């Protein structure tokens, strides 16, 4: 496919993919860092040990850089549905708009207002109130994620709705069903654990860099001692919840899971493919698997080692009967590899967390340069896992934008030309690229600089090191 011939649909999809993945670099990082910052500040509040104050301000500053980028790119997310996907917006507006509006009312206002209070409130609010503002920021970032995941989960697994034949649009029948959609609850747990992993891993990585240089050992050793056990627990739980998430997805979106393992024909007791080659094309072809873990896939998908796993070709035939002629499989190689990348990173992170916890208990953190060096590189894993996870979730749902109800190609804005989408696609990508360089450099520079000094009695004074 030559790029000149790209339609406004292709371009709008690229734009959604690029802007959303970019936005989601900052989302888990902010959620994770806000949580740990609140934790460190709680330690400071309780112990009055200066190292916790310095840790709070140091990690808080990094959180703010991430937050700034997340907020700035988040506005695009809300506008994009109307701009590029007006048909989608008309079709789902009765349902999809509600969680977005609730996110604004319940979460964004809290987040922005209390973050302002936190940044400028040092020495101005009582220590207790000031601590509460940080926990409110942390809670609101999590609440915000919940509403947006409820909206997304409705696209994966529509519930609490009715199709109005007269208008050709879906209508909400139960907000409760949408907000307690089991898909949303699993996605929420999985994503929040991943956010903890992201924040914890970045803390571990930066702390390791400083510890290797014997720099500010007390602040960074303490920071890491809190982050590592959290990583171990969150890492293991992410895998466990991810597993149940997979079982649920097999029920709700069997095609996505069949594509995840490139299972073309329905079989029982299917092995987990560890590495496969081939053209990943359905009917009649298949992959040439070379390495498999016996029965593992059946277990992952259903919880039972010998159960049946529906194949892509069979599902395609089933859907053609139900929804009419067409191709109902996603791009298999993308599903196959994105799922593996996510899982691979997840296992490595859980392993890392366990080793870290063990070293931590033996008090060998500072004397294990190899572990510290690995920590620095391992900090990239949660970002890769998140990106792969979202690519898998969203690409694996194709050709649907709302599973079983609306195909992606029918969701795009009919009056926006390819030329116009080119302009915004190039514009956003270029701006995001420049911001990535600037903010990335600032993030690493701030991280490398280490925590600022705190002088005697400074803690009670207005402090604007986090402001402008």
């Amino acid at each position, binding site marked *: 496919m030559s790029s000149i011939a790209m339609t406004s649909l292709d371009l709008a999809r690229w734009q959604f993919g690029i802007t959303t993945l970019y936005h989601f670099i900052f989302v888990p990082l902010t959620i994770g860092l806000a949580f740990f910052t609140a934790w460190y500040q709680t330690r400071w509040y309780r112990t009055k040990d200066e190292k916790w104050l310095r840790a709070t301000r140091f990690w808080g500053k990094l959180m703010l850089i991430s937050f700034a980028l997340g907020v700035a790119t988040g506005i695009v997310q809300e506008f994009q549905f109307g701009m590029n996907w007006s048909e989608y917006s008309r079709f789902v507006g009765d349902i999809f708009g509600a969680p977005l509006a609730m996110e*604004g*009312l319940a979460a964004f206002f809290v987040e922005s207002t209390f973050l*302002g209070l936190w940044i400028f409130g040092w020495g101005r609010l009582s220590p207790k109130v000031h601590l509460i503002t940080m926990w409110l920021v942390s809670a609101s970032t999590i609440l915000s994620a919940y509403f947006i995941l409820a909206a997304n989960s409705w696209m994966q697994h529509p519930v609490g709705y009715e199709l109005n034949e007269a208008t050709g649009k879906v209508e909400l029948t139960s907000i409760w069903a949408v907000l307690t959609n089991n898909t949303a609850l699993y996605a929420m747990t999985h994503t929040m654990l991943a956010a903890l992993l992201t924040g914890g891993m970045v803390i571990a990585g930066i702390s390791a860099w400083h510890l290797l240089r014997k720099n500010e050992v007390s602040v960074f050793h303490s920071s890491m001692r809190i982050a590592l056990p959290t990583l171990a627990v969150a890492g293991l739980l992410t895998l466990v919840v991810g597993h149940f998430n997979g079982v649920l997805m097999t029920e709700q979106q069997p095609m996505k899971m069949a594509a995840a393992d490139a299972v073309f024909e329905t079989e029982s007791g299917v092995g987990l493919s560890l590495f496969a080659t081939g053209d990943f094309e359905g009917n009649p072809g298949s992959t040439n698997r070379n390495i498999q873990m016996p029965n593992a896939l059946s277990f992952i998908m259903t919880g039972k080692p010998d159960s049946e796993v529906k194949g892509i070709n069979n599902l395609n035939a089933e859907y053609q009967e139900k929804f009419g002629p067409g191709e109902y499989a996603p791009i298999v190689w993308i599903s196959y590899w994105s799922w593996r990348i996510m899982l691979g990173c997840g296992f490595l992170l859980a392993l890392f967390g366990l080793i870290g916890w063990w070293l931590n208990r033996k008090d060998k953190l500072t004397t294990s340069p190899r572990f510290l060096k690995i920590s620095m590189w391992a900090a990239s894993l949660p970002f890769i896992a998140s990106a792969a996870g979202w690519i898998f979730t969203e690409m694996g749902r194709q050709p649907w934008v709302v599973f079983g109800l609306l195909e992606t190609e029918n969701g795009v804005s009919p009056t926006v030309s390819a030329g*116009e989408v080119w302009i915004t696609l190039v514009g956003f990508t270029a701006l995001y690229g420049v911001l990535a360089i600037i903010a990335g450099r600032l993030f690493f520079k701030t991280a490398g600089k280490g925590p600022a000094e705190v002088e005697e009695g400074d803690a009670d004074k207005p402090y604007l090191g986090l402001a*402008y």
Partner: protein
Amino acid sequence: MEDTTTLQFIWFVLISVLWIGYLILEGFDFGVGILFKLIGGDKEERRAILHTIGPVWDGNEVWLLVAGGATFAAFPEWYATLFSGFYLALFVILLALIVRNVGFEMWGKRDSDAWRTGWEWCIALGSLLPALLWGVAWANIISGIPMEPVATNGRESLEYVGNFFDLLSVYTLLGGVASLAIFFAHGALFLEMRTEGELREKAKAVAVKATPVAALLGAVFMAWTLIRQDSLEILSLISAVVAVGGFIVAAVSAKSNPVRAFIGTAAGIAFYFIAQFIDLFPNALVSSISPDFNMSLNMASSTDYTLTVMTVVAVLLVPVVLAYQAWTYWVFRHRVSAEGFGDVKSPLDLLDQKKEAAGGSGSNPGAGGEPAGS
């Protein structure tokens, strides 16, 4: 065409309130963002200016996000047609808001003149463009856009069928220039109210000149808007008169009483847009092709069930939001000056001196919503 239901009316009012809240609050941010570059002589003054809006600008911007989300939830057809129709204009606004937001956060994060100058331009342009373009956008919404039914996916929807340049006419550009002038004056008054010393004098000098210009442009736009109406709407006329009255109060008081003047522009902005919302009602969008293609609120609306759910959520949450946003303004109500900003390491010594006025934690919500100087 069916009549607007009570729930639809409530949501039209609520969305109007969200927009008006946004335009009053971010309105002064926009003005301050432009003045930041214009009257902030040196680094210290600029930092002081930034600090007047530092704790609140992000919360102010959320009003826009909620207005957008509420429009999506309550009137999906309005949201879909408007956002896909004003495509490139919204793109420019988004770029502007992004660089402006990042600029606020980044400006002081590195001690380098080149770094700061770059972000200052981002903040100034990122404030100027939306201040202008929101005015253009609303003038288009009330005066009518090329919109007609287009069949897609076996369903007919009212779609914007013009291009970017169809949004620009003498009337809509006047709307843009007027809103820019109004927000600029509003921001100057805010600075005059929130600063002291030399900075305050500079802000006052700007405000004294800017407020009459804003009043004049606002009055001309209001008059033109009323003349355009097929049959004069009395409520719209009253709002327009009150709006212009507010701007005139601001112009008269700018020199002697910045608090009164700021209340003048704030009320002026509110009624300026109330006049426009009344003009628009009962439509969500007006077609310049034929009145038959107007999009009524009823046509644009979500179901009663969704509107009921959202009403419950709004009734529960909006008062809470108002209370804690008011509290923030109360906590940060002190005047700011450039003095004490010289030493980057421990800035805001001045605020420290002013701390006694705050009385510690300021745990007194609802005691004052106005960011008035104490």
